[in-house]
């Protein structure tokens, strides 16, 4: 699928400044040129990771993302410009990255990572990079990489803090992954993403840069990689901490591909509130019931709009004043971008209408239109 350009045909002058480093040289450059890396998520972390890996001369890059570029991405996702708003991220990314370095072959996967497609996507790549923004995809990707023994470079952020680690690489006769840190995911509403918590552009760029640095060190065989170590870094006060960790006895990840395929990651990541959740398969059945309504609690300028569905548009901030609008419906389902605001809407509405059947759809607006 991906054809890596022969190292001898590359113009090495462009890589001179990294090649003259005593611990890098032509050998490391050749290793980068012969490597393939898959970046999952082309957002705040994915953009700097992609830009650095392509500029550095990694031979082949894959990008997985089902999202489109939105105006509120531009302050931190420097790979995109104003002309890209409304364009799928993978399309815009490939266009910009191709201009950046023709030595790198780039493949795009404009899809959501699922149990069905994950193995066919990741198996072609040497290293996988987790730049995702939700726990469902994070656990799914972690477990798939653990099963295929694919090195996984992880990072995530919260406000001014970031975490970085490298999984599935054997060292000291041990192999560790994300579940050795956090065997089970947090509650649905416990940890806000950047859409809710906010993020400074420099912060995601710093943490994404650290993440790209780990990928490069891993590819060239550096000893100082964050294996069995989690780096926590705060860009506001510059406090940093390294957490050493070992295989966790309490974790229970799928041990075979069959177990993995039967594992419901959506349910696993919302396990304590599963009665309130509608899956993609159940949404239409729920809405076909008499007196049912879908309520979109995103802001009215958030894309994509749900034009194909009969949905009420009530942004979460104004839901409290608009509860009367819902009085005549018996079955309510809330929807937003990532399941967080829809969960809040559900909890608010339940206290007013305890007799109604109220659900939410955590997979979000994009999943039913993709």
């Amino acid at each position, binding site marked *: 699928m991906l054809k890596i350009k022969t190292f001898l045909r590359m113009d090495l002058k462009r890589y001179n400044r990294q090649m003259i480093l005593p611990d890098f040289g032509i050998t490391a450059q050749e290793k980068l040129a012969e490597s393939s890396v898959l970046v999952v998520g082309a957002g705040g972390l994915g953009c700097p990771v992609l830009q650095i890996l392509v500029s550095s001369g990694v031979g082949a890059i894959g990008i997985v993302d089902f999202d489109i570029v939105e105006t509120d991405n531009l302050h931190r996702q420097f790979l995109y410009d104003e002309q890209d708003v409304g364009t799928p991220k993978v399309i815009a990314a490939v266009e910009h990255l191709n201009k950046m370095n023709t030595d790198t072959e780039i493949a795009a996967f404009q899809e959501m990572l699922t149990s069905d497609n994950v193995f066919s996507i990741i198996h072609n790549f040497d290293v996988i990079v987790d730049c995702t923004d939700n*726990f469902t995809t994070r656990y799914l990707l972690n477990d798939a990489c653990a099963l295929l023994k694919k090195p996984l470079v992880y990072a*995530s952020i919260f406000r001014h803090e970031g975490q970085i680690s490298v999984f599935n690489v054997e060292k000291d006769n041990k192999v560790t992954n994300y579940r050795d840190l*956090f065997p089970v995911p947090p*509650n649905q509403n416990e940890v*806000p993403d950047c859409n809710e918590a906010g993020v400074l552009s420099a912060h995601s760029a710093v943490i994404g840069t650290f993440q790209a640095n780990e990928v490069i060190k891993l590819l060239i065989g550096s000893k100082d990689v964050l294996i069995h170590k989690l780096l926590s870094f705060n860009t506001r006060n510059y406090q940093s*901490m390294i957490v050493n960790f070992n295989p966790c006895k309490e974790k229970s990840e799928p041990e075979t591909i069959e177990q993995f395929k039967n594992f419901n990651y959506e349910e696993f990541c919302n396990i304590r509130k599963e009665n309130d959740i509608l899956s993609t398969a159940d949404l239409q059945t729920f809405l076909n019931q008499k007196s049912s309504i879908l309520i979109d609690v995103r802001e009215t300028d958030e894309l994509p709009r749900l034009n194909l569905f009969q949905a009420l548009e009530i942004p979460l901030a104004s839901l409290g004043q608009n509860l009367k609008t819902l009085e005549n419906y018996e079955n309510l389902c809330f929807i937003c971008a990532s399941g967080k605001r829809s969960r809040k809407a559900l909890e608010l509405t339940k206290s007013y209408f305890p007799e109604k059947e109220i659900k939410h759809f955590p997979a979000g607006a994009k999943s039913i239109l993709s």
Partner: protein
Amino acid sequence: MTLKIFGKLTDIFKNVQYDLDTEKINTVSDLKKLLYEKFPALKELTFLIVMNGVKAEDEQSISGDAEIALLPPYSGG
């Protein structure tokens, strides 16, 4: 003992650090129990206890001069 607090847990502790009287604490489990008494909201939350730079297990003993941090998972990408 001064605990270092990370992520959204700082909303509960209202600070990035918290001073704790260590008299009743012998193990990581004791520390958790005491924290749950003082901050019941913590019971619902997921976080690691880090002791002297290593992820700690419940049965491990804690000395008075141990450096402790509470670290939750992050979601943003």
